């Protein structure tokens, strides 16, 4: 495995995005039964987030015909700049099957508390060029809703696919 294996695994914390008038609400429960990759980032992240999503796209291709068993979810944690529609469109640029979900300020506060990671703006958040500190790892939740792996960034798509196949 390419990252930190959670052993024994425990139930993944809840993850809920209310959406808005154009994008329906989404919950981690919606992908129950599928092995799910989650990455928390922001759409104006030029380096790490698109690198992760591009590696996911390769992983999904490597999984071949099994892809219905997996969900790939990019979760935006930059409510000031990322709308639900912006985020959905961003994720689909990497693969039409990827989900893009945007969190509100209140949802970011809930998720960072429940999942135990930090998200905060760096630079002046009143300026358009601030950046966002976000988790480095992608989280892998198994089909039973248990957190199984924290996948480090920079892992090749083929290796991600191999890890996902091993998570039952």
């Amino acid at each position: 495995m390419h990252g930190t294996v959670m052993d024994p695994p425990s139930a993944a914390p809840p993850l809920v995005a209310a959406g808005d008038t154009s994008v329906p609400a989404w919950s981690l429960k919606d992908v129950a039964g599928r092995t799910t990759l989650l990455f928390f980032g922001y759409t104006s992240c030029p380096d790490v987030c698109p690198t992760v999503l591009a590696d996911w796209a390769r992983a999904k291709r490597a999984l071949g015909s099994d892809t219905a068993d997996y969900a790939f979810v990019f979760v935006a944690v930059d409510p000031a700049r990322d709308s639900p529609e912006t985020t959905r469109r961003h994720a689909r640029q990497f693969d039409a099957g990827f989900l893009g979900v945007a969190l509100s300020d209140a949802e970011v506060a809930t998720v960072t508390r429940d999942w135990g990671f930090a998200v905060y703006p760096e630079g002046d958040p009143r300026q358009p060029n601030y950046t966002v500190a976000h988790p480095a790892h992608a989280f892998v939740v198994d089909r039973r809703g248990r957190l199984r792996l924290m996948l480090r960034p920079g892992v090749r798509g083929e290796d991600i696919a191999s890890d996902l196949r091993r998570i039952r």
Partner: protein
Amino acid sequence: MRISRAISVASVSAFALGLSGCSGGDAAPAAAPTRASSPLAAHAAWSRSADSGATAAVYFWLVNRSTVADTLTGARSELAEETTLHVSMEHGGTMHMAAVASLPVPAKDSVAFQPLGAHVMLRGLRRPLVDGDTVALTLTFASGRSIPVRSGVRLP
């Protein structure tokens, strides 16, 4: 905080230098004739496709064939509202991206600008970057030199 970040950036760039391995005289840059005398060149530049208004990164190998070290001090492009040097780094499980004022380019060596590390950031793209497209930018150095870079755009 500010001091620790400066140290972190220094260590990241040192790490990038440690990875470099294409120094030497075999990498003749395919530059315009007027630039042929420059010992500095950016090779294999690429960017991911991106929407208009989005933020993108440019990656390349920066080669210095000179026996004199130089320092990359800036980048500019008419394609974006803002063009800056950035370094991504991880601390304790959290990913950060910091703007840096400069990055050293040692003599007879090369520096990797690559995903999850140093990159040129184009913020506020004035047009979309499409697969097969080319991004033109200019890198400027403490020595006063500047070099053009043509970055190929590929699918994200």
